[in-house]
């Protein structure tokens, strides 16, 4: 029997992700709970007084709220599971892409096998995420471990600089 163990190098610490979100100037977190990011990201964010946290009922609400917030130059981050991303597809098309808005989506890849690229996952729902983002012309950043987190703040900054949506895929499970 083999036992898979995670080395420190493979780990993804939620605290480091949160540091990056703050470094990018994000004030509002718009969330629907995702088991993948539940304990490592969403709980600490919910308890962090530096964020304004809005729990929405369905993922597409995030698009409307985030769009409205841009009129005050307020940065938000939508924190959802990949299934919620799929649910909100029409709002992402109609609001984020066609209106060219800096909507930033952090997407939990629940069930993705550690170290396996999403397109090679055993799960159909995970395999289609990157191709869908490509077809929609949405840039993406894949975060598997702490070694990747430094890309989060620049991805959000770039979305705002170019006024376009971006997706940050959380592959590793934050702890």
């Amino acid at each position, binding site marked *: 029997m083999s036992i898979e163990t995670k080395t420190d190098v493979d780990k993804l610490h939620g605290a480091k992700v949160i540091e990056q979100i703050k470094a990018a100037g994000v004030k*509002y977190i718009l969330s629907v709970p995702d088991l993948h990011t539940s304990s490592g990201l969403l709980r600490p964010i919910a308890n962090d007084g530096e964020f304004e946290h809005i*729990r929405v009922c369905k993922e*597409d*609400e995030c698009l*409307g709220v985030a769009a*409205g917030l841009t009129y005050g130059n307020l940065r938000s981050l939508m924190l959802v599971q990949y299934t919620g991303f799929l649910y909100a597809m*029409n709002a992402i098309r109609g609001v984020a892409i*066609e209106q*060219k808005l800096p909507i930033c989506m952090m997407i939990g890849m629940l069930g993705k096998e550690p170290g396996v690229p999403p397109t090679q996952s055993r799960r159909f729902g995970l395999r289609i995420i990157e191709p869908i983002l490509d077809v929609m012309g949405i840039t993406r950043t894949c975060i598997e471990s702490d070694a990747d987190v430094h890309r989060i703040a620049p991805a959000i900054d770039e979305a705002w600089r170019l006024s376009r949506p971006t997706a940050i895929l959380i592959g590793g499970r934050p702890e």
Partner: protein
Amino acid sequence: MMNRKQALEMLAGRITDQIVVSTYSTASEWIEIMDRDLNYFSAGAMGLASSHGLGLALACPERRVIVLDGDGSLLMNLGTLVTIGKVAPRNLTHLVFRNGTYEANGGHPTPGPEADFEGHARAAGITRAFTARTVAEFEERLDYVLNEDGPVFGCVAVEQGPLGPRSYKDMYKAERRAALRAVLSA
């Protein structure tokens, strides 16, 4: 029963510096009555007008944001009432024009033409809620719509307006969004 355009004209007569968010059929009537930079048209995804309004209300706390929603639209995003009830922005008014039909899509009835939206709003925690069924009732509520600490919710029962197709091209163009941003950042 009220005609929606009548109600919108009454509201327009009292509008000053508020941001008005509208969608689909209501938007096309609003723009005929009051074309201005402080209009925001909820486009791209039906049902999200009030979510856009919530974001705007948080982004612009010094201004009243008035959402002109439709019942077909609201039914696609009923959870928004719970979200708004919880966030409770004081400067947000959400009006729903209830005509019982998907007017923009051929006039088919909604699944619940008599849905009690005021009841839904109250159950979601929006205690400042009303229903207006006549011109006089709506007129009586205008001060409340414009000035009451929100969130305020109003269901305005109206008859079905003209069926589509309507052109939304002009109201959804990027220049309008840019004009609103310019006013808000001035």
